[in-house]
C-alpha cells in the first residue's frame, strides 16, 4: 500500500488528477463557507453582469452569483456521480461475480439482459428510465446507475473468469472452501484493480450524463444549482453574456478531465503486468 501511494505521487499526471478531484470535493463539502452568496439569492440590480470583484464569475439572468452556484453545483455533481456509480458498480459486481463464477444458464440469462441494455445509447436509456420514473434527482441517480451497470457486469465477469483459472482458486476448492467464501475471499479482492479503475472512469461519465440530463431538463430541477441546469439556462444568453455558459462548462470539463487522468494513471499503476 505504501509503495502504491509512493508510485501515485511519483506519477505527476495521476497526482494532478487526484489533487483536482480533492479540490472539487473540498469545494462541495465546504460550499456554505466558501461561496460568497447563497446559490438562489437574486441580485435584481445586477442581472447578467460580467465578472467583477463583487461577482467573481458574473451573474446569470436572475442576478444569481455564478461562482456560488458552481460551488453548490459541485455538491450535486459529486453526489450524483458517487451514488449513481455506486448503484451501477455494486449491481454490476454482484451480477458479474455470479455470472463469471457459476457460468452456465445463470450467466446466459444475466448477460443477455445486459446485452439488451447495451443495445441502447446511454442517454436514450437514461431518458427512457427517467420518463418512466419521473424527473428528479433521485431518479436521475437510479437511471444513471442502471445505465452503468452493464459495463461493470461485463468487466467483473471477464475478470472473474480470468482469476478463476488460477490454481489458487482450484486450491481453495481443493481444501474445502465453500463457493460463497471463495467468491468473497479469493475472487473479489483479486478483481479489484480493473474494478477500481472502471469506477473512476465511470464517475466522470456519470457526472457528464447528469449534466446532459439536466441540460435536457430531465435531471436536477431548477432552481437547484447543477452544472447541467446552468448550461441549459445560459443557452439563450451565451451570445451576449458568454460568462454564463463558460464557467459551468469549464467546471464540467475540468472535473471530468481530473477523473480521467486519475483513472488512466490508476489503470497503469494497478496493472499487474507493470508491477516489479
Amino acid at each position, binding site marked *: 500500500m505504501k509503495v502504491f501511494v509512493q508510485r501515485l505521487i511519483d506519477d505527476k499526471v495521476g497526482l494532478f488528477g487526484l489533487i483536482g478531484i480533492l479540490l472539487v470535493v473540498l469545494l462541495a463539502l465546504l460550499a456554505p463557507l466558501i461561496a460568497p452568496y447563497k446559490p438562489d439569492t437574486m441580485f435584481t440590480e445586477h442581472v447578467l453582469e460580467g465578472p467583477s470583484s463583487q461577482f467573481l464569475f458574473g451573474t446569470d439572468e436572475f442576478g444569481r452569483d455564478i461562482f456560488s452556484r458552481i460551488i453548490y453545483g459541485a455538491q450535486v455533481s459529486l453526489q450524483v456521480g458517487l451514488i449513481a456509480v455506486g448503484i451501477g458498480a455494486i449491481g454490476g459486481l454482484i451480477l458479474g461475480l455470479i455470472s463469471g463464477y457459476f457460468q452456465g444458464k445463470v450467466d446466459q440469462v444475466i448477460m443477455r439482459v445486459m446485452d439488451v441494455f447495451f443495445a441502447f445509447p446511454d442517454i436514450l436509456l437514461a431518458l427512457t428510465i427517467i420518463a418512466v420514473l419521473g424527473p428528479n434527482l433521485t431518479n436521475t441517480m437510479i437511471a444513471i446507475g442502471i445505465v452503468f451497470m452493464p459495463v461493470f457486469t461485463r468487466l467483473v465477469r471477464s475478470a472473474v473468469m480470468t482469476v478463476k483459472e488460477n*490454481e*489458487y482458486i482450484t*486450491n*481453495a476448492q481443493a*481444501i*474445502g472452501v465453500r463457493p460463497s467464501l471463495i467468491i468473497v475471499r479469493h475472487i473479489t479482492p*483479486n478483481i479489484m484493480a480493473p474494478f477500481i479503475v472502471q469506477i473512476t472512469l465511470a464517475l466522470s461519465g456519470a457526472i457528464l450524463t447528469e449534466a446532459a440530463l439536466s441540460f435536457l431538463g430531465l435531471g436536477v430541477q431548477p432552481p437547484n444549482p447543477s452544472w447541467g441546469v446552468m448550461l441549459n439556462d445560459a443557452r439563450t444568453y451565451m451570445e451576449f453574456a458568454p460568462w454564463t455558459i463558460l464557467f459551468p462548462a469549464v467546471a464540467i470539463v475540468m472535473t471530468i478531465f481530473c477523473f480521467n487522468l486519475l483513472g488512466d494513471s490508476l489503470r497503469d499503476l494497478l496493472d499487474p503486468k507493470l508491477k516489479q
Partner: protein
Amino acid sequence: MKPLLNIENLSINYMTNKKDFNIVKDVNIKIDERMKYGIVGESGSGKSLTSLAIMNLLPEVLKIQEGSIELNTDSTKDLANISKKEMRKVRGREISMIFQEPMTALDPLYTIEYQLLEVLKIHKTYSKKEMYKIGVDMLKKVGIARPDQVMKDYPHQLSGGMRQRVMIAMALICQPKLLIADEPTTALDVTIQAQILDLMNELSDLHNTAILMITHDLGVILETCERVAVMYAGQIVEESTVEKIFEEPAHPYTKGLLSSIRSLGNKSEELYSIPGNVPTPDQYQELGCRFATRCPYAMDQCFNQEPLMYQVQDDHLSKCWLHVEEGRANERSSERTRS
C-alpha cells in the same frame, strides 16, 4: 482389508449440448493406506483428469459417465456420487492435493499464515493460538528455516521451492489419508525437485499418508512410488509394481516410453521417440486399441477390437493383443469385455 481408494471402471466424458465423447475410459486403481502410487503418461493422457475426478473438481463440461471412486476412511464414501457438502468435508481433510504451479497456487493477496490456517479453520476447531502453533510446526516440518517470518510473508516474497514447501504444508496440515500430487516438481529446478520429492516421501511416512503421484516423468515415479499405472489416451495400458514396469515392461507404449529416456551409456545413439502424437479425444478409435495408430507391432486385430487387461505375470496387467499372441495372457475379468 479394503483399499483406501478404490477406483472402478471410471469413465469421464466431455459433454456439451452438441458434442459427447469419451475422454477417460475404464480406469481401475486401488491404493492401499500408506501406499505410494504413481500415474504416468504424456500430456492429454487423462492422468490429471483422473485426479480431478477424485477431488470432484472436474470442469463443468466433463462428467463422470460411469464407475465409482470409493474412499474408505472412517466410513465408506463413493466420491463419484456424493453431495457437494459432503465432498467439501473430504477435501483438505481426508484427501488433499498439491498442484503443478507453486507460483500461482497461492493467493497473491494473503499472507502464508492466512492461507495455511484457512484449511485448519474449515475442518478443525482449534483456538487461534493453537492453530498458529500447528502452522509454525508444519512449516518447520517442511524444512522452512524461519517459520515465524514466513508466516507473515506474502507468496511473492518466497521462491518457487519455498512455495511448494508451503503447499505441502497446507496439504498435510489436516493429516489427510491421501495426498494427490499433480506434477508437483515439474515447475521446479532440478536441484529442488529431488528435495521436494524426498520431503513428500518423508512426511507421508511420518503422517501415514498415501500418495497418488501424477507425473509425466518416469524418474519421479522410480524415485517415489511403489506401484504405477501407465496411462495412454485416457486408458490405463499397463499396471504393476514399479520394479516390474521398469524391468519387464509388457505394453509396447511403456516400452516406447522407457526407451525414450536418455541414459549415459549410449550417448552416440539417437534418442528414441514414439512416432506420431497422442490422439485428441475426438480422434480416439471407436473400436480397437487407442495406441494402434502409433504402435510398431500393430496388427489388423488391433484396429478392430479393443484388447482387454491381461495378466501377463503375477500382479502385472497389460492391455495389448500381443499377450494373446504370445500365449501368456490370462484374462483378468471377462465381465468388462465390451466391443
